[in-house]
């Protein structure tokens, strides 16, 4: 690809895939650089350099806990959001294995949850969802359940799940919440025993996940134990990245009241205009949703071709269509909702996205769809 490709009309590329990963928040850069110099040692060592790293790690933990409304001793840093999901879900499952054997999860969980559940070879049971991807609480079946997994919000279509209502119906079965899609942008829901979040979704660096386990929750190490200072820790933490993640989180939480309203309005604008295009369906809840993302499916269009053509025009978006995934299976989220799975695009905005970016995208999209359909 040439360096000027896709820059023609408006002079810069427009990144509309913050739900996959957001650029590093400016507030994180300085912390990151400083900690690379000072926090290189093993935080468990008793020498000066080790204590310096420990101080940075403890400060980052305190700031993270404060921003998320947690206690510092509930927070463990992991090597990714996926790692936090695996440890959170499987640790609760192991902790309850005397009470049952079945992992219950929503039909629209992230594949990290589904793969972890399947890896145990334990029975699994899915909670169905409606056409907006919201779980059907009346279909909940807790027989032999060790754990119930429910996302805070859907990562593909943005619909918020009724986590508190679900938690009220669990009758002592622990709840695992995958909060990767919402953490930072929205307050965490209540009622869970373990929760996972991911720093690069809020503008921290990649490679930092948060595993939160409530004080008193029955969580048991599902993987080989590590000889670290605290339970649940595994491996030598990336202390500079963790500090940067905490700095980004604090900044995002500080600015989120205004920023979420702004991003919500950008997505409203996208939903309105895209929803008016012929043979295009916007999916997910229009109101009860994440502020920053929208998904739509376009009849008679190949999702891969759509992503590629939009990229050529300077717009970077994601797709849940089968033709864009390695598995050649359609998105299980779209399938569970009964939504059209081909021609699917997810657009997600961030702090750098302007009204002009959204308007330019909306100006280009109808022509791209028309061209792709004309090639049939």
């Amino acid at each position: 690809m040439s360096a000027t490709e896709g820059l023609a009309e408006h002079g810069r590329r427009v990144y509309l895939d913050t739900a996959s990963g957001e650029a590093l928040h400016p507030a994180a850069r300085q912390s990151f650089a400083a900690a690379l110099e000072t926090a290189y040692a093993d935080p468990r060592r008793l020498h000066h350099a080790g204590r310096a790293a420990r101080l940075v790690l403890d400060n980052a933990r305190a700031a993270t806990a404060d921003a998320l409304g947690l206690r510092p001793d509930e927070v463990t840093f992991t090597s990714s959001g996926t790692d936090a999901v695996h440890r959170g879900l499987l640790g609760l499952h192991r902790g309850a294995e005397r009470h049952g054997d079945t992992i219950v999860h929503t039909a629209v969980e992230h594949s990290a949850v589904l793969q972890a559940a399947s890896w145990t070879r334990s029975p699994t049971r899915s909670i169905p969802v409606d056409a907006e991807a919201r779980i059907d609480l009346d279909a909940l079946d807790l027989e032999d359940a060790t754990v119930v997994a429910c996302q805070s919000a859907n990562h593909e279509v943005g619909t918020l799940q009724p986590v508190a209502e679900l938690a009220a119906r669990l009758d002592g079965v622990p709840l695992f919440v995958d909060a990767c899609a919402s953490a930072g942008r929205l307050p965490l829901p209540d009622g869970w025993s373990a929760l996972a979040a991911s720093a690069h979704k809020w503008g921290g660096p990649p490679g930092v996940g948060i595993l939160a386990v409530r004080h008193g929750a029955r969580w048991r190490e599902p993987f080989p134990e590590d000889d670290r200072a605290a339970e649940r820790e595994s491996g030598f933490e990336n202390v500079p990245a963790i500090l940067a993640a905490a700095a980004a989180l604090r900044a995002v939480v500080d600015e989120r009241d205004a920023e979420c309203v702004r991003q919500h309005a950008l997505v409203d604008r996208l939903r309105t205009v895209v929803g008016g295009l012929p043979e295009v369906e916007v999916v997910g809840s229009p109101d009860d949703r994440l502020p920053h993302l929208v998904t739509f499916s376009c009849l008679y269009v190949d999702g891969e071709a759509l992503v590629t053509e939009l990229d050529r025009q300077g717009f970077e978006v994601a797709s849940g269509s089968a033709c864009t995934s390695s598995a050649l299976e359609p998105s299980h989220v779209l399938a569970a909702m009964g939504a059209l799975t081909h021609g699917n695009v997810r657009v997600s905005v961030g702090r750098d996205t302007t009204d002009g970016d959204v308007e330019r995208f909306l100006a280009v999209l109808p022509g791209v769809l028309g061209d792709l359909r004309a090639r049939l």
Partner: protein
Amino acid sequence: MLELDCRGLVCPAPVIELARRIGDVAAGELVGVVATDAAARYDVPAWCRMTGQEYAGEETADDGVPRYVVRRVR
């Protein structure tokens, strides 16, 4: 029933074929989309919903490949 052999075609080709051929049958008649592509199971019913046609259910062709049946209503 008009049967469309979409074996081996990947999404969105089976649905494109369905849209091209639905007009070949009269209102009230059936079109069967025989497709190996996994997405057709979701996309044929979604197409019916989006275009105002009726999804009549899933059958199995003689070779075991799913057949998604659509009733033309308009």
